[in-house]
């Protein structure tokens, strides 16, 4: 039974601890000297008037329903996994043109030492086997979730990174 999944962040629960990023590196054998981590963790603060607001983020591929990177890739390396609808890739024909990076409004795609695109694939093979994506499994505060887009709302829209970025995403071509 095919599902439509995405990985979403409850920004109210994230504390920028980085557990997700490390779990991702372990899962994907990431050589950090050569390749930028797939998950980007931010501990942010912004001064507005008298007050300062603090916010926390863990950002990797958002597995957009209508993913601009898929449309932008000249070699059709990026595709939707039919079982999970996660945005997966086969970079056999990747030419390293960076078009996917120009398409992605989250700044997500990175490139390995071979010049080919790499990014979060949602651990789709783990998901096929009933396992959670490594980052979701690792998140100690339950901020990162594998969400079923056709299921009930798991994260309040005002705290959901996915929801909060939908308007922005709709403008990307």
């Amino acid at each position, binding site marked *: 039974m095919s599902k439509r999944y995405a990985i979403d962040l409850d920004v109210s629960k994230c504390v920028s601890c980085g557990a997700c990023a490390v779990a991702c590196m372990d899962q994907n054998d990431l050589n950090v000297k050569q390749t930028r981590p797939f998950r*980007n963790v*931010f501990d*942010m603060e*912004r001064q507005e008037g008298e007050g300062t607001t603090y*916010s926390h*983020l863990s*950002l990797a591929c958002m597995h957009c329903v209508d993913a*601009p990177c898929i*449309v*932008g*890739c*000249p*070699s*059709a390396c990026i595709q939707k996994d039919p079982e999970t609808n996660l945005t997966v890739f086969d970079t*056999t*024909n990747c*030419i*390293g*043109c*960076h*078009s996917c*990076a*120009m*398409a*992605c*409004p*989250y*700044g*997500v*795609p990175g*490139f390995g030492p071979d010049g080919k695109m790499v990014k979060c694939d949602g651990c789709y093979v783990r998901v096929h086997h009933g396992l959670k994506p490594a980052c979701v499994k690792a998140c100690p505060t339950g901020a990162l979730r594998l969400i079923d887009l056709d299921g009930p709302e798991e994260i309040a829209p005002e705290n959901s*990174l996915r929801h*909060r*970025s939908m308007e*922005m995403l709709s*403008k*990307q*071509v």
Partner: protein
Amino acid sequence: MRYGIVGFGTAGYHAAQAIREQDKAGEVHVYGDTGLAPYNPMLTTYYIFGKLPRSGLFPFGPLEEVADRLGLTLHHERVQKVRAQDLAVETERGVQRYDKILIATGATAFAPPVKGLSPQDAHLMRTVDDAQRLKDRLDRGDVRSAVVVGASMAGIKVVEVLEKYGVRVCLADLAPHIFPLAAYPEVSAAIEKRVAKRGIDLRFGATIDHMELWNGQKTAVMTDGSVVPADLVSLCIGTRAATQVVQGEVDIDRGILVNERMETSAPGVYAAGDCAQGVNLESGEKQIIGLWANANRQGAAAGANMAGGEARFEGNILHNITHFMDMDFIGFGDNRIQGELLEQGALDGDGLYVRAVISGGRVAGANILDSYRISGILKNYMLRLFAGEGGSLPDYQRAMLLQAGLRAEFIDRMEVMTRG
């Protein structure tokens, strides 16, 4: 329902796919004269370079596989005419009528004739055949010098290929600079410096006038009177929308005029891809934006609407990323618009350089060197401003830009200058 798709590049492919998502039963007839699966003209130089096998030119797989997957009826024949009034497609074999027709004939490379240039030494760079021809020629190993005319994205990729084959290359353009349609003159100059440093002979304000034989060496005589040895000449001057089949049937400017539903002026006839002229979101005018992603979006919208759906593709801005000779050049928007300048990084240094021109509270144009990482977010920001949104970056975009090396001052200033 019977759908006719004339031309089977990526726009036609995406239309067929969108039709199939909504209409599993309808007949989808696809007309193409190449007998090839949809291919990406941008990949041709990568194939010659050796980065891709020939099969890599066809991102969606071989033609039969595509036809199978999408349930298409293929017509390997040249379309002579599409009659808009009665939704008919005419070929040598006869006339077929459809309920909806998509024109997705793409564009063709054009080049004026060059006196004295033997046809076997003249090369274009658009089609799979063009690529194969140049590759075969280079693989023979007898090309020692070449002139590439057209300092465009295609031109520079041909130069890169020739360089790899050890060919002495001269890149010429009548324009004063490289990438004249996308780069700011200062950025062009920096790129030219880097290209020249690799031993590429660059000539601007000049193009090829004619060919002569000098001491047995085929030689290009340039419009400024200078001479360059040229065993072959690659003409990367430009492309033209292929609109002949609907000439006189629908409204055509430079391309087939379409609205955001990809409808032409004739009911039931749609157009998408490089033959179509949609909206430039920056100028609000209709303009051909001949980009792969644009063709995909247009094709998908057209297909969805043809099958009775409701899809809109509002338009696009000019945007380009060219990865060549170990550098990235990214150009967004209209590089002719003047305004207030925002700049970070040094043009001669390595690492991130970005130059944005702000005009009327919008980012009118931007050039980026050597940082693909900020490109998607910056483009998104431009698009949101053109859509009338106020200028502020959400925290996740801001964080990614900072991580990629864009300075807070740049972002803050850009936000202030675009804050309605």
